[in-house]
């Protein structure tokens, strides 16, 4: 017990250290580093670190310090960490954010303090619409964009009917709404499952099978995606009804999904084999630095976030008090993105291409994601006109 007291004392001392306002660029990075989804946070951190390596760990001539904080996938913890980074560490930028609910909880703190926030993944519709802010930029997408691209692709393939399955939380509903907004065929069924506790999809798969739909669309990020594909294959439906996905197969889940993912298409704004020089450098150096790992779209977005921040800091020559100039620079998206060039909309969400990706066996027999085609070009999210900011 005494030990606990000493630790508590050390805690107060540690917290009591006043933030030193040295001549460094300070960046806070909030993501998930504990629990089952820590694997996503790790990939984001790896990619952010790689980007800093490539930048010589300097921005605008000043050394960069990054403080990583774990949100534990909980909105209130994420908000508290955001407060700590802004109030105690006095960071110039804050980046990261995997989850929509964590981002929404933390948003007000960042905007009120006029700290630039770069979302490297979460893209709830509010962020693109009524909650857009001059201080918030995204290097990812708005939730609906990816499934909209999947819906478009299904039209291109002439699919007549679909059965939709997704988790019952905001991003899940956004995803299914996204497909429905572009898919021209018939939606014969729509099932929502309890998130995150429901892991057995037998009831939903049975319904889908009996619905006589021509195709199934699902959105299951992370481990749930592995479970869904396992059960889809085991139930023998794979041979009968083709599956279309959004955010269900990526480089993190593929090693667990294995053959079950072969030939299952999805859409993404970034794929590891996109043919541009920045992307080649990113993917190759990532695989060199973190042996045995492959970067994911989460990582690519984090890599872009670091470069977006760098473009702003370089433009003001390291004087981060010039917020208006930094904002103007970031709006130009004047950096080499690994997804290829893109523009920002009035709401600071990228206007970008979406690609069709497929799972194939690469030269050494390994399963890999591969770009097959461009589904849509320069796609803008459908909430931009709800954002009061004008270009």
């Amino acid at each position, binding site marked *: 017990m005494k030990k606990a007291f000493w630790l508590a004392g050390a805690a107060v001392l540690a917290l009591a250290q006043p933030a030193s306002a040295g001549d460094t660029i300070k960046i806070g990075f909030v993501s998930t580093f504990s629990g089952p989804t820590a694997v996503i946070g790790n990939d984001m951190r790896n990619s952010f670190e790689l980007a800093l390596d490539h930048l010589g760990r300097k921005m605008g001539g000043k050394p960069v310090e990054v403080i990583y904080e774990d949100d534990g996938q909980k909105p209130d913890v994420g908000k508290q960490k955001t407060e700590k980074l802004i109030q105690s560490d006095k960071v110039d930028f804050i980046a990261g954010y995997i989850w929509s609910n964590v981002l*929404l909880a933390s948003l007000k703190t960042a905007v009120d303090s006029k700290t630039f926030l770069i979302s490297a993944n979460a893209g709830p519709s509010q962020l693109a619409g009524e909650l857009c802010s001059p201080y918030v930029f995204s290097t990812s997408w708005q939730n609906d964009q990816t499934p909209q691209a999947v819906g478009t692709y299904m039209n291109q393939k002439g699919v007549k009917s679909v059965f939709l399955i997704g988790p019952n939380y905001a991003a899940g509903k956004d995803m299914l709404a996204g497909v429905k907004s572009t898919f021209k065929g018939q939606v014969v069924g729509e099932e929502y499952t309890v998130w995150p506790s429901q892991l057995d999809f037998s009831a939903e798969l049975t319904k889908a099978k009996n619905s006589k739909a021509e195709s199934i669309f699902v959105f299951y990020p992370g481990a749930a995606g592995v479970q869904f594909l396992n059960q889809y294959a085991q139930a023998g439906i794979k041979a009968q009804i083709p599956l279309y996905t959004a955010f269900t197969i990526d480089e993190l889940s593929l090693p667990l999904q294995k053959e079950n993912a072969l030939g299952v298409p999805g859409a993404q704004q970034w794929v590891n084999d996109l043919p541009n020089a920045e992307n080649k450098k990113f993917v190759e150096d990532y695989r060199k630095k973190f042996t045995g790992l492959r970067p994911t779209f989460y990582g690519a977005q984090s890599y872009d976030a670091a470069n977006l921040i760098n473009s702003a800091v370089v433009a003001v020559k390291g004087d981060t008090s010039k917020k208006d100039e930094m904002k103007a620079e970031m709006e130009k998206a004047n950096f080499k993105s690994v997804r290829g060039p893109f523009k920002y909309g009035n709401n600071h969400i990228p206007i970008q291409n979406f690609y069709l990706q497929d799972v194939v066996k690469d030269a050494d027999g390994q399963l890999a994601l591969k770009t097959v085609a461009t589904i849509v070009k320069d796609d803008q999210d459908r909430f931009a006109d709800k954002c009061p900011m004008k270009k």
Partner: protein
Amino acid sequence: MKSHINVRNVVVALVALGLLLLPLYSAVTGNIFILTLFTRIVIFALAAASLNLIMGYGGMMSFGHAAYLGIGGYAVGILAYEGIGSGFIQWPVALAASALYALVIGALSLRTRGVYFIMITLAFAQMAYYIASGLSRYGGDDGLTIYKRSTFGGLIDLSNRVQFYYLCLFCLFGGVYLIWRIINSRFGMVVRGVRSNEQRMQAIGFHANRYRLVCFVISGTICGLAGALLANNTDFISPAGMYWTRSGELMVMVVFGGMGSLFGPVLGTIVFLLLEEVLSQFTEYWALIMGPLLLLIVLFARGGIMGVLGRFSRG
């Protein structure tokens, strides 16, 4: 009765003094975050103290106290969303809603005892969690951002950090004082009597379950107040804060500090949340240390922090 000056009381007094002077320290050093952190700690301490009232004195192991945090919070959040910003309306609604919920589930749950009681309070809290997740108008699973804190007609400004901190501290001290008055009143004696020997109290002619129920409702109402404070502190409310693990954390805080001692839960909350904060700074694998530490505390430090301090006091 022996002297009041012993290790335990000195520690309690020092902690109380420290909490009172914290904003001064924050102002002098310019460290705003420590105030933010302790505002959260003080609010959780109030919730833990309310749980201690039924757990420590009433012998009712509630595994669903997070529900009150949620109900109090959602009352504030939903009213704010619907354009009613006055705390004079929001807060009484938060308290009344918590009290009503406590009354209903208390009346049903108190038919059971022991582990069954733990599980039925959990069941009701989980139902509340799923209901909150289903409130799609108010954000569903994603939660609801509260854009404006409760207003009190210019009396107090909740968006001022120091004023809000003192309000929370006032609620904590007020809550602890209220609990102290309750347990030393005739009513409190009966509740404690029922805990140690229900049959005897029944035989003397006390309607044991009515006393328990009133105690249960008081505890829920105090926790609902903590929920209203927490929603104002985070400017945000979501079902995630009502999940069963949050109820478990509250139990840990109470036992950590010392169940059935007036200030135990307050100390327990401070140590638990600070440990979590500090360990997570040192290592990502903080749970690897926190887990066995909990086990050791249970095995070797019975009565929590207060129990250990008490042993120092004696000798």
